[in-house]
């Protein structure tokens, strides 16, 4: 029977999540119907910056079906704001990085002023969402508009209006870090090149908007909150804190969640407000964020401008990077300086660069708060760095691929000490990988560099413009602080696993079942996995930052190991054998080499039970269950090389991507097919950010992309043929050799496209140093007349 | 199921006559609704007669009392004059169900439910109560003992129901009483019930008597021999012995968990004596 149980890690086993989703039996927050449920609609500011003079709720309260209407004044002093310092930074990081962090608190509903268009100023609870929205229209709010702080430049200008008077500045954080001697290196560098790179504002935009349902059971004093969240324990903590309840009496559950990608990765005011309303009204309360609200209120991301100088020698060896960049954090900074910290840490990428000088300012503006989205500071830094590398190549007349290969850290240099500190406070060490191999593989997949250059020349002769773009990056994954897991062996012998990780489509239930099945040597169907339910595991962190496969597997192993000690002790007792003659096999434990000497977990569980008829050896405690919290030593480093070939239509400037390739290393792949799906999904989001998606504000601080008619998500037709190649260099940092891969795909495409377009426009010496790549800008390089291509300007 | 609550007798009669399916009259509902809940009845039409005034009055028509069939037990208990006039009838009414049940239950319903053990029936029989019945063919008057014909069965025709009861004007020195025997003091069904109604002359001799037994036969019985045993006596021990013998002799009870035939027969005699004693006291006072 041993061969009847395969090893599951590395197998593309089918997703156990699929069936109910395909049958329309998914259980998303919006699908919940509880008896007596009330519905919330929220009144949101139309001013980017304004003082509240008065809010009259009388008419709303009198409206049909209205149970309650409240404004910020009604909860001021009742419900605390979300603390700006809810995300702590480790001492080790603050020791090594100069930080000046002052994150403002975020009121659940402000009582004094509005800080962005879309911020709540009142809410209505009614018998239906329709009636609630009717009543919201009856709220009479009187605002005193203040000058909008419409962007970082305005925010940092002298005498700028202050968003948060308590801070005395429009800055949430300033970070400064150095490696080597940047100033000296610049002075002595044979070549210097200076540019401003801008990565525009866009967002995760999951197909399911956010939503919260809460139900307070007064009899049991248990408040259950169902939230479309990636971090149920975080939400539980904030709700318990705000309502002054023990965390154990707040249960937060993320049922099926329709995508997250970071935007659902922190606690929002609505999570707490809906919980509060359910407790206050004694009836279930539901708030479902509609798409307009999502665009106006859910966190935006990216939006970083880099002043970037790079010094290099005649061979294209990069000697120094000196950058000063500003993050537009919007009105608040829900996840602190996390994005900025990532940009700082990932700037140097896969390259061996001796000197680095970096200062980052997180500016507060009258825009939607900026929070991590798939990549979280990496796509921005990678855009700047990878554009700069291409410019270095141009300056020296070298091929961009060649310059990359010359600067990349060779595999023999692994593990490589970067000389910087990660945000977990640990000095950065790239743990494993072969960066040049990944780049070469990408070029090979596209037919080889030389072959392409020949093709490109040929095409140009025919008046066709094709280009090849590259983008290489490294990504710290599996970050701490920890993840929790609970493992139990059920009397039936089944393995019950629960973790603090929350799934939004990654297939956690399948992946963790694969890993637990291998840990226990059982058929995968004997493993039951629960994710996203705080009642199942006391402490958890959640699914953000490409961390769950790494951290949750560590916790599941920790708990399993502890139980297995007992299993061996009891097995030895039952089989009358020495523990070190035993092995886990065939859904139980047996004596090595003696097939008939075997006990199933069901039998072990029976022997382990409390009570007088147990069969435990002396001193072995009853029960087969354990909770473990895995605290990773530090991050493990995934990386990739992305490459694309594009063709440009000179008449329209339209960019057509012929092929997109990504060679990715996430260490050991637990489920290759699902890993492939994660990377491809990320790549298409990266394409969206590079070409279509944009959250645009006008000069008055108004969002001009408030619908999916203007915020353009990529569709099936916009996706080119994509190839993902996996390099599986195991991480030495964890038992399974795994690295994270949730975010990776989204990091490279914007710069890959920009570089490819610039490569195609080489005859014009074109530079595109901002995202998104706009067809109009591309077309402009060909001159004003669509039919007469003007002489290439001397580059 | 359709629910109607007519405010006139004609309307009620019309509704009942007009219903092709099964129709039930709803008075207090303490039996009908239980039958519906327990699927022993599944009427197509329910006619609630409580909104008809004539069924809700209690009136003293110079000594002869008349009360509506839908008057609740509680309403009768609240009527002091009637309690003084017919204490024995009220003995029976007070034993119907619980406070909650008496808040709804009616003597009319108690009678027409046709349970052999209904507590208000023997004293009404002993009191020579006459029921006014109405139906498609108009009104008719029926002695109470002729309404019930057997367990769950009555002599009422289709569309007929009881409107009210009349109790005859009583001569002086009359008294009545009802006793039942149950394992529990309250909320129980009589194993045996006995009502005695008698009248004395100034000398204390019994000039008239009427005895009724419940729960010892398919329906409440009038026991003439028992009455004869009292008439002409001073209701002394000998009369009491004869009374008991006659009462027991009249029994043809069933055997069930509440009591055997022998036991019920025995108890009937004992209860008859005790009820007669109370009635005697009341007649003298």
């Amino acid at each position, binding site marked *: 029977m041993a061969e009847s149980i395969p090893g599951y890690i590395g197998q593309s086993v089918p997703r156990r999540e699929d069936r109910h989703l395909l049958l329309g039996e998914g259980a998303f927050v919006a699908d919940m119907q509880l008896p007596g449920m009330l519905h919330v609609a929220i009144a949101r500011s139309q001013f980017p910056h304004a003082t509240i003079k008065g809010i009259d709720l009388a008419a709303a309260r009198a409206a049909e079906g209205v149970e309650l209407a409240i404004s910020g004044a009604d909860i001021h002093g009742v419900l605390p704001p979300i603390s700006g310092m809810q995300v702590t930074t480790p001492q080790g990081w603050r020791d090594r990085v100069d930080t000046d962090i002052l994150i403002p608190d975020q009121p659940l509903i402000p009582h004094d002023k509005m800080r962005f268009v879309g911020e709540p100023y009142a809410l209505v609870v009614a018998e239906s969402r329709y009636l609630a929205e009717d009543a919201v229209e009856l709220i009479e709010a009187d605002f005193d508009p203040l000058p909008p702080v419409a962007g970082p430049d305005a925010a940092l200008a002298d005498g700028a209006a202050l968003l948060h008077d308590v801070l005395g500045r429009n800055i949430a954080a300033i970070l400064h870090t150095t490696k080597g001697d940047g100033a000296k290196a610049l002075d002595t560098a044979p070549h210097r090149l200076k540019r401003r790179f801008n990565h525009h504002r866009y967002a995760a935009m999951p197909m399911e908007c956010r939503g919260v349902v809460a139900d307070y059971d007064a009899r049991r004093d248990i408040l259950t909150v169902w939230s479309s969240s990636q971090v149920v324990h975080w939400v539980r903590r904030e709700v318990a804190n705000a309502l002054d309840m023990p965390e154990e009496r707040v249960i937060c559950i993320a049922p099926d969640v329709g995508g997250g990608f970071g935007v659902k990765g922190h606690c929002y005011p609505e999570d707490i407000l809906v919980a509060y309303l359910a407790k206050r009204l004694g009836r279930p309360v539901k708030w479902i964020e509609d798409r307009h609200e999502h665009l106006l209120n859910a966190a935006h991301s990216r939006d970083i401008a880099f002043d970037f100088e790079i010094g290099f020698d005649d061979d294209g060896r990069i000697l120094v990077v000196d950058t000063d960049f500003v993050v537009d954090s919007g009105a608040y900074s829900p996840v602190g300086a996390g994005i900025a910290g990532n940009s700082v840490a990932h700037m140097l990428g896969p390259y061996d660069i001796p000197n680095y000088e970096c200062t980052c300012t997180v500016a507060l503006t009258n825009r939607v708060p900026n929070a991590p989205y798939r990549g979280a500071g990496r796509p921005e830094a990678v855009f700047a760095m990878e554009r700069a590398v291409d410019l270095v190549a141009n300056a020296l007349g070298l091929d961009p691929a060649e310059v990359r290969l010359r600067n990349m850290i060779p595999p023999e240099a692994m593990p490589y000490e970067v000389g910087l500190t990660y945000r977990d406070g640990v000095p950065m060490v790239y743990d494993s990988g072969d960066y040049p191999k990944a780049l070469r593989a990408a070029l090979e997949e596209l037919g080889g560099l030389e072959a392409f250059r020949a093709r490109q020349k040929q095409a140009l002769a025919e008046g066709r413009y094709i280009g090849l773009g590259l983008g290489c990056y490294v990504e710290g994954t599996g970050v701490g602080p920890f993840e929790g897991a609970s493992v139990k062996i059920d009397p039936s012998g089944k393995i019950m696993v629960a973790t603090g990780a929350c799934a939004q489509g990654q297939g956690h239930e399948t992946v963790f079942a694969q890993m637990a099945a291998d840990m226990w040597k059982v058929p995968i169907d004997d493993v039951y996995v629960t994710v996203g339910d705080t009642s199942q595991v006391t402490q958890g962190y959640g699914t953000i930052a490409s961390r769950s496969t790494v951290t949750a597997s560590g916790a599941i192993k920790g708990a399993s190991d502890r139980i297995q000690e007992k299993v061996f002790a009891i097995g030895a007792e039952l089989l009358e054998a020495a523990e070190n003659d035993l092995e886990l096999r065939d859904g139980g434990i047996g004596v090595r080499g003696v097939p008939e000497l075997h006990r199933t977990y069901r039998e072990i569980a029976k022997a382990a039970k409390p009570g007088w008829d147990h069969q435990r050896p002396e001193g072995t405690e009853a029960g087969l269950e354990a909770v473990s919290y895995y605290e990773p030593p530090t991050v493990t480093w995934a990386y990739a090389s992305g490459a694309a070939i594009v063709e440009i239509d000179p008449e329209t400037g339209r960019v057509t991507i012929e092929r997109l390739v990504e060679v990715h290393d996430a260490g050991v792949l637990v489920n290759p097919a699902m890993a492939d799906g994660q990377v491809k999904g990320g790549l298409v989001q990266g394409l969206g950010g590079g070409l279509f998606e944009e959250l645009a504000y006008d000069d008055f601080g108004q969002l001009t992309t408030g619908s999916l008619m203007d915020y353009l998500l990529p569709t099936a037709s916009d996706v080119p043929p994509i190839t993902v190649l996996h390099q599986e260099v195991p991480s030495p940092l964890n038992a399974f050799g795994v690295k994270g891969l949730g975010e990776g795909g989204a990091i490279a495409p914007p710069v890959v496209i920009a570089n490819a377009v610039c490569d195609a426009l080489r005859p014009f010496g074109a530079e595109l140093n901002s995202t998104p790549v706009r067809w109009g800008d591309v077309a402009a390089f060909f001159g004003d007349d669509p039919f007469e291509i003007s002489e290439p300007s001397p580059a | 199921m359709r*629910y109607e609550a007519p405010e006139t007798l004609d309307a009620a009669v019309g509704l009942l006559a007009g219903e092709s399916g099964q129709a039930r009259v709803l008075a*207090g509902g303490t039996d009908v609704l239980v039958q519906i809940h*327990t699927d022993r009845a599944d009427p197509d039409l329910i006619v609630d007669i409580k909104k008809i005034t004539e069924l809700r009055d209690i009136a003293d028509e110079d000594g002869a009392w008349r009360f509506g069939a839908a008057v609740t037990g509680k309403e009768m208990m609240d009527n002091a004059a009637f309690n003084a006039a017919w204490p024995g009838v009220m003995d029976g009414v007070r034993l119907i169900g619980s406070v*909650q049940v008496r808040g*709804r239950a009616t003597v009319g319903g108690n009678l027409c439910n046709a349970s052999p053990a209904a507590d208000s029936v023997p004293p009404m029989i002993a009191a020579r109560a006459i029921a006014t019945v109405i139906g498609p063919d108009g009104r008719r008057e029926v002695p109470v003992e002729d309404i019930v014909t057997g367990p769950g069965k009555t002599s009422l025709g289709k569309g007929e129901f009881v409107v009210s009861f009349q109790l005859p004007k009583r001569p002086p020195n009359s008294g009545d009483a009802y006793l039942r025997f149950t394992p529990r003091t309250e909320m129980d069904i009589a194993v045996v019930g006995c009502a005695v109604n008698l009248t004395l002359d100034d000398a204390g001799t019994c000039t008239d008597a009427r005895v009724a037994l419940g729960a010892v036969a398919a329906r409440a019985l009038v026991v003439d021999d028992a009455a004869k045993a009292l008439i002409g006596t001073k209701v002394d021990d000998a009369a009491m012995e004869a009374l008991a013998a006659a009462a027991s002799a009249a029994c043809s009870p069933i055997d069930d968990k509440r009591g055997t035939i022998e036991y019920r027969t025995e108890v009937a005699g004992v209860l008859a004596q005790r009820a007669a004693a109370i009635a005697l006291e009341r007649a003298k006072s």
Partner: protein
Amino acid sequence: MAKQHVTTTVNGDAVELLCDPTQTLLDVLRDELDMKGTKEGCGTGDCGACSVVLDDVLVCSCLVLGVEANGKSVETIEGMAEGEDLHPLQRKFIDHIALQCGICTPGLLIASKALLEENPDPTESEIRYWLAGNLCRCTGYHKIIEAVQDAAAEMRGN
């Protein structure tokens, strides 16, 4: 089948609802009005757990049709306390530990309240007879009787 429009008053609040003729007042309270304080114990009027006061008369709500409540007023356990202030009977039930599992408690409280309104100074046996329509399986009644007597005394003001 056609639902009937019912207008009634529950604990002083006007209530309008559509009611199926087969629904008992108990069903209406629990299922339509979501007032689950009134309990169902037998459905045949034997246990009193569903006791409510209908136009000042103590009844079993399982023996009253919802449609019969039309135009009447209903008092239930939910109307007994004044906000946070418990009714003396409720306080005394707590003081005397007159409840254990609590499912019979709403009916007993409603029945006791009806008793004290009719008879402010009942004897023990009057209380016992009055409450005979309310079954309790946990307490053995003793503490309930004490609680009612104690509450009666307090309500009489001594």
